[in-house]
């Protein structure tokens, strides 16, 4: 079975101004198979959204290849046919910006249905739009048809974005921080909705986020890729990564996350980091980009960029050191 989307040795560079080039992504290899849920986790600026846009086919990488069902989409001979173009859809973080603010929910959804000739005539279209809204829990659907996006709550808008993404029966939905702008208590219901779509329709998801907790909830048995400043630092099954993180950066991320248990949350913690500053474009560290902040950094870390190497099975990290201690979940210092 061909992977739905595959990235091979993808590099992405942006020209900042005449002198400087910014490397947003470095040697990314990624395979998304049918029905899989994969998370890309990292802080802002790590390149995760850029990967999303490359997977979406709207951004051409400076180097490397992007394959849709085995077809190389940036090939000179390639031209988009409708089924291929619609195979990958997106749900953005900002639901306000991803819905046309001047069109009602009905108009936004019916435009697509009509143009793609999925329905014919007003009656048919109306009933299809209503069922689309019901699928995502927007009931009664009649209430939402004539509303404009600004009249809906963030969670409701996000549901509309999600149902819109399913209209063309995509194989993969790129969810870029889909719940970050939604109230914390409503996040689960949106994630549950996406889980249901994954189970019922076999839609694969690429979940891009900075929040490990929601990633853990959503991805379940799938894989996670941890990014730092454009490179993959650790990847593997999410359960394995959270139980047994090996890269110091992942240690730091896990330490920084709070729990909802006050006695645990209040325990004083030292983040295993030497410095708080992220690297900037103008002074990129040599060798491993994480070495200025890594408490275990050694000489070799400054010399050369570590390649991804396998620890066990699918669990890979990009680090030289064997002596990075195991991360203890409950002893934060």
């Amino acid at each position: 079975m061909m992977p739905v989307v595959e990235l091979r040795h993808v590099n992405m560079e942006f020209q900042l101004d005449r002198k400087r080039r910014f490397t947003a992504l470095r040697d990314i290899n990624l395979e998304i198979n049918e029905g899989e849920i994969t998370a890309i986790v990292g802080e802002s600026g790590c390149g995760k959204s850029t990967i999303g846009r490359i997977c979406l086919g709207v951004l051409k990488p400076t180097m490397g290849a992007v394959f849709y069902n085995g077809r190389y989409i940036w090939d000179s001979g390639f031209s988009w046919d409708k089924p291929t173009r619609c195979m990958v859809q997106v749900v953005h973080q900002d639901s306000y910006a991803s819905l046309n603010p001047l069109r009602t929910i009905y108009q936004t959804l019916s435009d697509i249905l009509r143009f793609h000739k999925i329905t014919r005539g007003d009656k048919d279209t109306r009933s299809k739009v209503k069922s689309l809204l019901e699928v995502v829990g927007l009931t009664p659907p009649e209430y939402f048809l004539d509303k404009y996006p600004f009249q809906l709550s963030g969670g409701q808008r996000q549901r509309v974005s999600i149902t819109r993404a399913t209209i063309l029966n995509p194989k993969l939905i790129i969810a870029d921080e889909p719940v970050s702008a939604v109230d914390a208590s409503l996040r689960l219901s949106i994630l549950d909705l996406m889980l249901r779509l994954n189970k019922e329709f076999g839609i694969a998801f690429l979940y891009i986020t900075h929040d490990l907790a929601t990633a853990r909830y959503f991805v379940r048995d799938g894989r996670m890729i941890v990014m730092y400043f454009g490179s993959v630092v650790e990847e593997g099954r999410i359960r394995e990564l959270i139980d047994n993180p090996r890269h110091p950066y992942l240690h730091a991320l896990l330490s920084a996350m709070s729990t909802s248990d006050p006695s645990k949350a209040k325990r004083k913690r030292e983040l295993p980091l030497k410095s708080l500053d992220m690297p900037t474009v103008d002074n990129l560290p040599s060798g491993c980009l994480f070495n200025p902040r890594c408490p275990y950094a050694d000489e070799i870390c400054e010399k050369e960029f570590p390649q991804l190497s396998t620890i066990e099975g699918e669990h890979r990290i990009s680090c030289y050191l064997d002596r990075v201690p195991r991360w203890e979940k409950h002893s934060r210092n």
Partner: protein
Amino acid sequence: MIMPRNTGKRLLESFTIIKHNRRAFFGLCVLVFFILMATAGPVVIPLDMSQDFLMRFQGPSWAHILGTDFAGRDIFQQLVHGSTDVLTIAFATAFFGSFIAVLVGLSAGLVGGKFDMLMMRIIDIFLTVPNFPIMIIFASIFRINDPISFALVLAAWSWPGLARALRAQVLSLKHKEFVEVSRVMAMPYRHIMFKEALPGLMPYLMINFIDMARGAITASVGIMLLGLVPLSVTNWGMMLNFATFQTGAIYVPSALSYLLSPMLAIILFQYGLICFASGVEEIFDPRLRS
């Protein structure tokens, strides 16, 4: 209920919005007033252009509502008869200008690439070549007799600025998420242009529409004075010009209404347009409805 093809209901809803917005409603009334003046006015009110110098520079009276001009002719009659041309030129220019600007600006912004570059060069040419000399050339080649062709010529020189601004707006919109989603859903450019991009640009277009209308009135005076177009004495701009510069009305106290009438007519017309425009914005952008 909004069904895209059901224009009747949409008009009714639009009208309700205007009705609720006091400024816009006022604007609508003013515009209706002027349109009636332009259409029915000349039929209802006769134009008597016979000169009677004994009656010159009269102030408002029962016989002459707005007084008389330098030749003793009724000002109100002239305004009414002039309104037809003025409104036609103003609206037609603004309409043609906007239309071309929208087509060029939107397509250049959306399609990009070489097409965009070509359009930008054309716009640049229009913007740098001075209007008047070209218009003089135009006028000598093509006979400009009626307001419509006059409007076309004026429009030819007002569209480039707007086109460029629209293109800039489209470029910024292009990267907005909802446009990206439309692309990913393989929606055609025509849909993106008219259904996604254009409605957001309507407020901007409205303002420019008014500007063009206003500019057309002024430009028409200049062109007439240059003798490129047959002089129309009842054109408001022309009347204002006569009153201010040609006939010494500014020195005659009783001629105040001669001076003010065309001025106020122009101002009121524009103000009506502006007020109405605020309501139009609301029609296109539901977020502005209070």
